[in-house]
C-alpha cells in the first residue's frame, strides 16, 4: 500500500505531511509528558524487528499464496499508540529511503495511511475498548483481526482519495474504490490472523508486555472507569461506521463516478472551478508559456514529429554536455585527491 511519489500531487503531499506532522507532534508531546525515555531504545529495536518480520512469508492455508505481518496494530499492542506511531514513522522512512517502498514526497501520506489508522484508530477504538474488562485470547484475536481489517480498509480508501484528488489516474473513483477495497479486505484478514497469532503467543508467555492503556503489568484488575466507551457501544459504533462506508459511500461512488467533479458541481454549478485575480492570471500565463500540450496540442506546432525531433536532439546535446562537465569535475577531484 506504499504510495509512490508519482501518484501524488505536491499540494496533496504537503497536506498529508501536515496531518502526519500533527499526529507525530501530539505523540511526542504525550511521550514526553509520561516520561517514556526508556521506551526509545525499545522503539528502535521494535522498529527493526517489525521491518525484519515483514519479510517472513506466511503460508495461507488452502490458497498456495502467502501473506505478511502488518506493523501498526502489533506495535500499538506492545508499545502503545504514541510510541507505536513514532516507531512506524521510522520504519516507513527507512523503507522509503533504503528500499524505494513509497516515495519521499509521499511519505506524509504513507505515514497517515499505514501508521495513523493502525496505531491510533486501531488502539483507541478497537484494542483499548476490547481489553477494558481484562485480556483473553478471544479478545486479542477479535481485536487484532477487526483492527487490521478496518484500519487497512481506511488506509486503502485514503490512497484512493489522495490519488483521485491529485488527478493522477483517469480511473473513475468508483472503479478505483472497487479495485482497492476488496483486495485489502483479504490482505487485512491475513494480517489480522498473523498479528493475533503473535500477540496470543506474547500473552501466553509474557502478558505484562501487552499494552492495555493502563499501568503496565496490570493485566488483571483494570480500572473500568477510565474507558469512555463500553465494548458493546464500540462494536455498535464500528458497525454503523462499516455500514456507512460499505453501503452509503459505495452507492454514492457508483451513482457519481467522479466524486471530486460531482462535489465541485454541487458547490459551484459547474464541474470546473472558475478562478479570477492577478495571481491566477499570472500563473495561467506561466502555464500557457510552459505547457507543451495545452488542450492536447503542442504550442506553435502542427506536427508532433517535428517537435519530438527537436526535443530529442536538444536532449541528446544537453545530456552529452552534462556528462562531459561531470567527467571533468570527477577528473579534477581524483587528481586533487591523488596529490
Amino acid at each position: 500500500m506504499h504510495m509512490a511519489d508519482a501518484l501524488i500531487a505536491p499540494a496533496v503531499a504537503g497536506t498529508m505531511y501536515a496531518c502526519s506532522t500533527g499526529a507525530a507532534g501530539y505523540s511526542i508531546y504525550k511521550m514526553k509528558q509520561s516520561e517514556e525515555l526508556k521506551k526509545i531504545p525499545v522503539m528502535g529495536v521494535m522498529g527493526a524487528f517489525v521491518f525484519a518480520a515483514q519479510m517472513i512469508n506466511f503460508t495461507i492455508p488452502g490458497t498456495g499464496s502467502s501473506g505478511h505481518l502488518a506493523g501498526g496494530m502489533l506495535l500499538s499492542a506492545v508499545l502503545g499508540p504514541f510510541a507505536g506511531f513514532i516507531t512506524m514513522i521510522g520504519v516507513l522512512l527507512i523503507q522509503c529511503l533504503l528500499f524505494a517502498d513509497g516515495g519521499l514526497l509521499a511519505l506524509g501520506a504513507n505515514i497517515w495511511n499505514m501508521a495513523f489508522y493502525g496505531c491510533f484508530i486501531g488502539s483507541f477504538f478497537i484494542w483499548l475498548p476490547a481489553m477494558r474488562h481484562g485480556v483473553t485470547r478471544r479478545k486479542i484475536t477479535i481485536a487484532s483481526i477487526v483492527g487490521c481489517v478496518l484500519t487497512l480498509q481506511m488506509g486503502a480508501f485514503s490512497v484512493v482519495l489522495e490519488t483521485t484528488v491529485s488527478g493522477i489516474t483517469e480511473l473513475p473513483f468508483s472503479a478505483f474504490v472497487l479495485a482497492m477495497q476488496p483486495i485489502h479486505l483479504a490482505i487485512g484478514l491475513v494480517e489480522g490472523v498473523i498479528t493475533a497469532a503473535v500477540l496470543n503467543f506474547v500473552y501466553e508467555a509474557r502478558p505484562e508486555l501487552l499494552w492495555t492503556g493502563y499501568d503496565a503489568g496490570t493485566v488483571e484488575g483494570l480500572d473500568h472507569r477510565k474507558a469512555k466507551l463500553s465494548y458493546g457501544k464500540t462494536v455498535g459504533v464500528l458497525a454503523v461506521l462499516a455500514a456507512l462506508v460499505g453501503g452509503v459511500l459505495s452507492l454514492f461512488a457508483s451513482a457519481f463516478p467522479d466524486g471530486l467533479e460531482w462535489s465541485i458541481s454541487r458547490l459551484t454549478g459547474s464541474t470546473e472551478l472558475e478562478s479570477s485575480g492577478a495571481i491566477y492570471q499570472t500563473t495561467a500565463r506561466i502555464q500557457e508559456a510552459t505547457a507543451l500540450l495545452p488542450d492536447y496540442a503542442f504550442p506553435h506546432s502542427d506536427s508532433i514529429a517535428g517537435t519530438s525531433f527537436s526535443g530529442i536532439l536538444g536532449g541528446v546535446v544537453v545530456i552529452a554536455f552534462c556528462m562531459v562537465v561531470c567527467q571533468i569535475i570527477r577528473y579534477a577531484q581524483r587528481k586533487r585527491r591523488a596529490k
Partner: protein
Amino acid sequence: MQSIQNVLREIHQLDEQTQQHTALSGIHPGMKVLVTVFFLVLTTSFDKYNLTGLLGMCIYLIVVYQLGEISLGGMLLRLKELFLLLFLLGAANLFFDRTVISHWGQIPITGGMFSFLTLYGKGVFAVLAGYALVSTTGMENVCYALQVFHLPRILITTILLTYRYLILFVKEVDRVSLAYAMRAPGQRGIHCKAWGSLVGSMLLRSMDRSETVYQSMQLRGFQGQLRLQMREPISIGATFAYGIVMTGMLVLLRFIPVFELLGSVISR
C-alpha cells in the same frame, strides 16, 4: 516486501557506496535533502501531458549520478516493483483517455498514452532521486540533517536505532527462516501453526535485547538522545555552490523547455 537476501545485499551495496569519496562527499546533508525535496516537488508538479518538459528533469539525475559516482545497476531490482504498480494505475489512462491528439504515421497518439508515460517518468525519477540522496549521504547523515532541521530527538533516535539494528534482525530472520525451511522441505513460507510461536518468540527476544540495549546505553550516559556528528568535514563553500547551482538548474528545467529550445536551434 523484498526477499531477505536482496535486502541484505542492498544494505551492503549502500554502505559501500556511502563510504566512497566523491565530489558530493563534502556537501552538507541538509542541503542534499533540501535539493532532493525541491526536485521531487518540481518533478511531480508537471502536468500529466507535459512529457518532454518532464524528461528535461533527467539532467539533474545525470549530474548527481555522475558526481556521486553511483552505479545504476543496483536500481534495476528496485524499479521492478514500481513498474508493476505504475502499470496497474497508468494503464487506466490508456483506456479512459482516448482523445487523439496527433498521429505518428498511421498510429494515433492519444492523451492517455502521454499521461501514462508521464506517470512512469515521474515514478522512475522520484525513485532515482531518493536512491541518489541515500547513497551519496548515508542514513546516519540523513538523520544528522533531520537534527539540523530541528526535528524531535525522539523521532531521530528511533530512526537511527531502527537502522542500526536492522541488519541484525534481518540476519536473524534469515537464520530462523532457513532453520524452518530445513525442517519443512518443499513448504512455501511458514505454516499457520507456527505463525505465533515463531514470530512471537522472536518478538520476546527483541524485547529482552532492547532492555539490554537500554541498560548499556544508560551506562554510557544516554539521556534520551543520541549525539550525531558528521564523520567527514563539510565544505561550506561547496555546499552553497551546490545549493545555488542545483536549485537554479531545477528552476530552469522546470519552467523552460530546454530540450525543445536547443533542438529547434540546432535543427534550424
